[in-house]
């Protein structure tokens, strides 16, 4: 009878696994940070490139193309318009000027230019302070048109106006890089549109702005759903026409008088100063964590680095621009990560000070204060998502960037910190003095 073969299980070298895990994550973090600061050419000629996305004071960096500075923090375009009444013999009143500014503000916010400003100057003129992004100069002029939108029959007779539009939007069609305008009608508009498109099958209708046909979409079938999408626009006229559909015409007629460059609304050097000032805060917070929590602090600093790289990347991806609102979203989520780390580490330190083992302290910190951190982040993420759905203007636009930052925080606090902390404990040991300052003194006492 043959002897049973003993199956010996090779013990996994936990230290080696931890070292490899930490090394891989460190390389990935440093590579992302390097590309974030320097950008990267994606082909030999540099025709396709990944733009830098982490703001630095360097003027040669490409981050300003990824996060286009808004009128508040970047050079801006100042356009001054003369205002005139719509009808002959009418007057330019203070009330009409206020209404025009309000509607222009809504149009600009609709286009995502939340930092842009409209104001009444010299009693009867309107000044627009716009981000000088170089790609929307014509769009700004178009948005200052009166913008009396209507759908008309081929003979030019209007059959539907902006008053029947419930919501309008615009978007890129990635297949041909053109833009489309989408709209949704109210119940009365839905019926009119269904009847008229049924009548015009095989013909085309006209999209009229201030009495001029700007597009002639063909009609192949009756559109009875009360919504449609019109293709064939570009990045400038799509946003202008969609904003006119959404908000209707300006109460005054504006004529461009002058257009010039201007300093950022919040000061000439604000862009670089804010980058340095925020970097100083990161340094202070990092030093606090390093001195107080030592190896744990180093992991906290690492997580903060990942957070900033990822949050800025997502902000650039969402085309948020470099504005006060974007900085609030990115640095607000950074502050939340610091808060979550404080919750966790303070509990861990308190346990270590009472003589508990590091593994148990970390476990209890996750189970107690860690849950508060996750609760706060989860509630904020839920709130941000709801506000994105509810608000299509400034608050919703801000919440898009903020939600991405909070999502990064949740991933870091829910997964990454456990991996980093677990690996660090496996690799460097469980000596309490490694994870909190003052342990040796307390032990000696």
């Amino acid at each position, binding site marked *: 009878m043959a002897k049973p073969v003993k199956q010996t299980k090779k013990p996994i070298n936990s230290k080696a696994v931890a070292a490899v895990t930490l090394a891989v994550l460190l390389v990935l973090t440093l590579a992302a940070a390097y590309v974030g600061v320097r950008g990267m050419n994606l082909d030999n000629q540099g025709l396709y490139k990944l733009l830098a996305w982490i703001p630095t004071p360097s003027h040669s960096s490409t981050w300003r193309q990824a996060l286009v500075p808004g009128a508040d923090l970047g050079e801006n375009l100042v356009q001054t318009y003369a205002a005139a009444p719509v009808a002959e013999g009418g007057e330019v009143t203070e009330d009409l000027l206020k209404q025009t500014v309000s509607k222009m503000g809504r149009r600009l916010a609709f286009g995502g230019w939340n930092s842009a*400003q409209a104001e009444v100057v010299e009693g009867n003129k309107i000044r627009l302070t716009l981000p000088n992004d170089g790609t929307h100069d014509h769009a700004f002029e178009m948005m200052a048109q009166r913008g009396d939108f209507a759908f008309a029959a081929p003979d030019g007779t209007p059959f539907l106006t902006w008053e029947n539009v419930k919501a309008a939007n615009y978007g890129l069609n990635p297949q041909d890089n053109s833009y489309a305008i989408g709209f949704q009608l109210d119940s009365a508009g839905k019926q009119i549109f269904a009847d008229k498109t049924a009548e015009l099958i095989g013909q085309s209708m006209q999209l009229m702005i201030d009495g001029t046909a700007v597009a002639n979409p063909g009609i192949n079938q009756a559109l009875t759903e009360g919504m449609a999408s019109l293709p064939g626009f570009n990045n400038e006229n799509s946003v202008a026409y969609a904003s006119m559909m959404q908000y209707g015409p300006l109460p005054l007629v504006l004529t461009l008088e002058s257009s010039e460059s201007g300093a950022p609304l919040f000061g000439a050097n604000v862009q670089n100063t804010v980058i340095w000032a925020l970097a100083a805060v990161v340094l202070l917070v990092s030093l606090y964590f390093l001195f107080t929590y030592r190896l744990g602090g180093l992991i906290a600093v690492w997580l903060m680095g990942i957070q900033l790289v990822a949050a800025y990347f997502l902000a650039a991806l969402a085309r948020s621009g470099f504005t*006060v609102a974007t900085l609030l979203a990115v640095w607000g989520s950074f502050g939340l990560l610091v808060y979550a780390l404080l919750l966790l580490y303070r509990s861990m330190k308190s346990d270590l000070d009472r003589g508990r083992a590091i593994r148990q302290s970390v476990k209890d910190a996750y189970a107690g204060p860690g849950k508060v951190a996750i609760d706060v982040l989860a509630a*904020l993420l839920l*709130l941000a998502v709801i506000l994105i759905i*509810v608000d299509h203007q400034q608050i919703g636009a801000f919440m898009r960037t903020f939600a991405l930052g909070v999502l990064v925080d949740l991933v870091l606090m829910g997964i990454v910190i456990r991996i980093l902390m677990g690996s660090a404990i496996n690799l460097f040991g469980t000596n309490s003095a490694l994870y909190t300052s003052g342990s040796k003194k307390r032990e000696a006492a």
Partner: protein
Amino acid sequence: MSNVSIKSAPKALYLSLLVIAAGIAVALAGIGLKFLGSAREMVAFDALYIAMAVTVAITFIFGAIRYSLAVGITLGVVALHDQLLTLAVVALVSIALPQTVVMPVLVIFSIVFTYCQSWPVIRAMHELRTANSTREMDNEQIATAAVRQTAGLRLAAVIVAALLIVAGAVSGNAALVGALMPLAAGLIVSFYSSVCITPHLWVLSAARFGKRK
């Protein structure tokens, strides 16, 4: 730290109500809620008020589902208090520091401070209540203990937030200082409410809606 008392709850709210009333009064009178240039015309106040209502509703629902009805009510009322008080303080301070178009975003963002300040207090009270019988610790003792227990964390959170706000404020001109003022107001209001409002509200709502687990 003063002892928490059910009787003192209305007193703590008097100051808030007074400031809120003053904020509404100066805004209606046209003295307060001042904006730079014509920025006021660009601000969608209806969107701000809807967002504030959504914030309060989501806070209540999350607290009620995650913890209990008492916690949900406490968090919801604190969120309402903080949002209104922040807006009122902004209305008053804007007389000296006019606001910009970004004001609604900053007022809504102040809910982050409310969560960071009040949530640990509520969680601590909830845990102390679960761990102790009413004979060992009554609700008022629990509230006092929770405020004291979380003081260090809340102060550290205030310092980090204040550092970030100051870093932003010193980077630009006076308009930027004014623009960031709602954040400073939100931070102060949230710290105040976590000490003076949240524990009282929890004591009241736990007595009325809470059940021993």
